[in-house]
Structure formats: structure tokens, C-alpha cells
């Protein structure tokens, strides 16, 4: 690839993205059951958005994680590693069988992402409220160089409660960084319960508008709508764009959807099997697919 032809290596269309998101969700359940620890609800709910980003939007070369022409994305919500790692593995940054060593001493996939351990992870994270600032710096530096890259900050709704997020929002609006796009996984759930009950954010879009951002809201499970929002964000000039992606935590698993208890725990093997049935597979089948991948 050259700068003239920089594009996502997959460029899947909505139907294919839907199928890919299903596989990603099977990865997530399988790796969490195997790890016996980790966060389930957020990664499952963000799977449609993340799949669209990794298999249509982001520009990268998995053979060269530090390829200078790449886009950059920052998972500020470090606990989203199951979806982050699954997408990186499916995209080709490392073997898919590595997913079965998630959170284990003999693997390279730390519980929260470590840039020195895992190809494709730009920066370590796991303490909330820092990703938007990192993205601000990367976007500002890229613009200084006239680099065509786009920089994406992937944020959770809960971490909007961190003051440093708003320091970064203020700076990005002030400096009119239109090469920066923040995507908020807006599922309205955090560890202690409903976001609006724990520490209300609404009206979140108005808050970003007040900080001079271009604000888009989409159904985070409508892949065509997510694609359209990403197109609009790319076309928009003169200010950074934030996409509030409305998602349902735990989607589509019947016993996980919208339940805060699924924020920070893994499924038991029995729960995992039940979830895999809902996803049209089995733990054994998917584990063997990962082992041979």
C-alpha cells in the first residue's frame, strides 16, 4: 500500500460485517470462558461497531503494525480487550490461537492492553480517561506533518465521568482537529449500575457540542448507520467528530443484555455454552477453530 491507496485491507460490506461480528462474538465468549476472568458485556455490545472499524474503516497493515501510513486507534476503555484482541487477531496482527491464552502468564494478551506485549496495540491502557488525550496528541502531531492519517479514540460512556476526558475534549475542540474521531460506546451501563443513576451524563451530545465538536448519534448495532456516520465524520472539516454509538451491553445474549452484572465477569462454562448456542456454535467447535487458526 502507498499513501495514495491507503485503505482498510478488508473493506467488508454490511452483510459480511454482520457475519464477521458473529464470529467475533464467538471468539469473545470462548476466550473469556477459557480465561475464567475478564469483561463480557461491553465487548459483546461493542462488537458491531468494532467489527465495522477493523474490517471496513481503519487503515493498517497487519504485517507491519508500525507502518507509518497507518491510521491510529486508541482503546481508552482498556477492559475491552476481548473485542480488541479478537479484532486484531482476525485482522491478522497475531495468530487467532493466541486468544486462548488471554490473561494467562504464558500468553502475550494482558488483561488490559499492553503496547509492549501485543502487536497492533499502540499504547497501553486500563486506567480510564486517558485515551482521548493520547488521540489528541497523535492527531495534532499528524496534522503538523500534513499526514493523511485519521485518529480514532474509542471511549466508554462511564469514562466520560473522568475529568481528563473533558480536558482533552476542550483541547481537541480548541485546536479544531478534524482528523480526530471519538466513538463512544454508549450502552448506559457501568459497574455500579445505570450510568444515569451512578453519575448522569445526559445530555452527552450537548456537552460535546459545547466543547466545539461535531456530534453524531447512531444505533451501534445498525452497521449501515455506523458506516454512514464514519463517512460523515471523515468528510466533516473544521472540528473533531464524536459518534455516540447507542449499544446494548451483552448484545445479543438473552441473559446478558442490558445487565450491569455482566460488565466485569466472564461466563461460566455452562453460561458460555448457552451463549454459544445463541450464537449458533459450541465452545468445543469454536475452541478447535481457534486452536487450528
Amino acid at each position: 500500500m502507498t499513501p495514495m491507496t491507503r485503505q482498510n485491507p478488508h473493506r467488508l460490506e454490511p452483510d459480511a460485517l454482520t457475519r464477521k461480528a458473529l464470529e467475533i462474538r464467538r471468539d469473545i465468549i470462548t476466550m473469556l470462558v477459557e480465561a475464567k476472568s475478564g469483561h463480557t458485556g461491553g465487548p459483546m455490545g461493542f462488537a458491531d461497531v468494532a467489527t465495522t472499524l477493523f474490517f471496513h474503516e481503519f487503515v493498517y497493515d497487519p504485517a507491519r503494525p508500525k507502518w507509518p501510513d497507518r491510521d491510529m486507534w486508541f482503546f481508552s476503555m482498556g477492559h475491552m480487550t476481548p473485542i480488541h484482541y479478537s479484532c486484531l487477531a482476525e485482522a491478522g496482527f497475531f495468530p487467532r490461537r493466541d486468544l486462548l491464552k488471554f490473561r494467562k502468564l504464558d500468553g502475550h494478551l494482558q488483561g488490559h492492553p499492553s503496547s509492549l506485549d501485543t502487536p497492533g496495540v499502540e499504547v497501553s491502557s486500563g486506567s480510564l480517561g486517558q485515551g482521548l488525550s493520547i488521540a489528541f496528541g497523535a492527531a495534532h502531531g499528524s496534522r503538523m506533518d500534513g499526514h493523511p492519517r485519521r485518529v480514532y479514540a474509542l471511549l466508554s460512556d462511564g469514562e466520560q465521568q473522568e475529568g481528563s476526558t473533558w480536558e482533552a475534549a476542550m483541547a481537541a475542540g480548541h485546536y479544531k482537529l478534524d482528523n480526530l474521531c471519538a466513538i463512544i460506546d454508549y450502552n448506559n451501563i457501568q459497574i455500579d449500575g445505570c450510568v444515569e443513576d451512578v453519575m448522569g451524563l445526559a445530555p452527552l451530545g450537548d456537552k460535546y457540542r459545547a466543547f466545539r465538536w461535531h456530534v453524531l448519534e447512531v444505533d451501534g448495532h445498525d452497521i449501515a448507520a455506523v458506516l454512514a456516520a464514519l463517512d460523515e465524520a471523515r468528510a466533516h472539516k473544521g472540528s473533531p467528530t464524536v459518534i455516540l454509538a447507542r449499544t446494548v451491553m451483552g448484545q445479543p445474549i438473552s441473559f446478558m443484555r442490558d445487565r450491569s452484572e455482566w460488565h466485569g465477569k466472564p461466563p461460566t462454562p455452562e453460561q458460555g455454552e448457552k451463549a454459544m448456542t445463541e450464537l449458533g456454535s459450541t465452545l468445543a467447535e469454536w475452541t478447535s477453530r481457534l486452536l487450528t487458526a
Partner: protein
Amino acid sequence: MKKTREGFGRALAELGRVNPDVVVLVGDLTDSTMVSFFAEEFPDRFIEMGVAEQNMMTAAAGLSLVGKIPFLSTYGAFATCRCLDQIRVTVCYSDLNVKIGGAHGGISVGPDGATHQAMEEIAILRSMPNMKVIVPCDFHETRKATLAAADIWGPVYIRFGRENVPVVTTPETPFEFGKGLVMRSGGDVAIVACGVMVSEALVATETLAARGIDARVINLHTIKPIDRMLLIAAADECGAIVTAEEHQIHGGLGSAVAEVVVRHCPVPMEFVAVDDRFGQSGTPDELMTAFGLKARDIVAAVERVMRRKTARVLEN
């Protein structure tokens, strides 16, 4: 007498001329941290971040990821304590090429009082994997340390002060990152100092010499990584060590030296530092006196350590 912070500001302007990747971020303290020299010459590579230090720290991390060499500048107290989580998780855990300029270090900031006097940050940053810590002693050394930081990969903290302090090195004095500098040879006791305490140590040696004590003075500008061989030789050859720093007694230069000495060549040690208390307002000289950081305090510490050294010899 000259300001150490000017050494930082002048060096950044020099770096700007030779290295297009150098960028400078400031948190609403352009003039007082003296990055104005860079700002005037390279406005396109200068980023005003406002009063938002946490964002400044992680923004610097982001700049380093796209190949920049970011130097950020604010008071040492804010750059470190305010942004510790950003330093730990984003900068150090990822080993990013971020340079932190900590201005107004130590107690000699003076009238602003405890909130603006960084006296804990060496201990804190020393405990962070991948972080390097430099505390230069005067204008020339601050300039050289800043130039050197641009060539060292990874996070570097450079601490400098606000006030005019004695110039005890020259433009030609060698500066080697990670190596201490013997400023005065001597075999009875080694005084290991950093920052402005180097000049206090040199003053102290005059009194000590008059009392028949031949003191070695080591300028340990790089606290991490520490110059183990130089310290082991000093302990071995002098048999007693006094450390002197403008910092809390816990966890700073003295602790770092003790970690090496205890492990490799245990000898009696004494520590000249701030004794577990916050700073306060006053003139710099009043404060240095009130907090026991003057040459006479070093002399007293040397006399204490010499008595312990002699007692040990007698026991043997």
C-alpha cells in the same frame, strides 16, 4: 549566578534548530518555565495546553507515537503528582518518548509555598519502570541535560529550579547521562549531591578542609539510572557518605544512593534533606536555612558520619 530554568529554555530552542521532531507543550506557564525561547522561534511546534496538566501529559504521549519528541513544561509538582496515573499507565508502561520538564523544583521556589515546591517527585518517579530522572546542578548542566534527553529513548524527567543559583560547571564540563561527576577529589568522606546542593557541598568542603577533613564531592545529576560503580568506589575509598538534596528525605537521592551502598559496600551514611514536612513561604535563602539545606548542615552531617566511621574503625 544564573537560573537553571533558563538552561532548559535555551536548550529547547537549540534542539528546535537541529531536530524538527522536537515539539514543546506548556501548561499556561510559557514565560516562567522559559520555554518562550522555543515558542518565539518555532510557533508551529509549540502547543499551549492551558491549565490541564493531565491532558498535556497524555497528549505528549500521543505526539511521541507519531514520531515527535515532546518536551512538556510546567512546575515539577504539577507535572508529576497531578499526572501520576498518566505517567504510570500511558507514558512509562508503554515506554513512550516523553520528556518532562519539572520547573520550580525543590524548596527554593520560595514565597509561593508548599503547593508549588516539588519535593516528592524524585521518589515517585524513581519508582516508575522505564523512567529516567535527571537533576542538574546549574544553568550549563540543565542545558546539557536537556540536550541529552532528546537523544535518550523513553521517558525522562529533568528537574530544575526557579532561582538564580551558583554556576559551578562550565560549558566545557563533561555531561554524560547516567554518570556522576567528581567535582572535588578527596578521601575522607564522599558528599553525593544533586541540584543546587552541589554548590552547597562545594562550599562545605572549604570549612571541612579547614578542620582537616578531605571531602570528595560527587555531582550525581542522574539519579536513575544510578552510577553504581562511582558510588561503590566512593564508599570503598572514603568509608563514609553524606547525601544532599533539595527533596524529602524519603525515597530521593539519599535513598537511591543507600540502596547501592548497602548492597555492595556498606559504610556509614548521613542524609541532608527535607525532614518529612511540607514546605512553606519565605525567601529561598531563608527556607534553605530553615529546612537545614545549607553548607553548614552538610558540614554537620559530615562530622556525624565521620564520628560513626571512626567508631567503626575502632570497633574493628
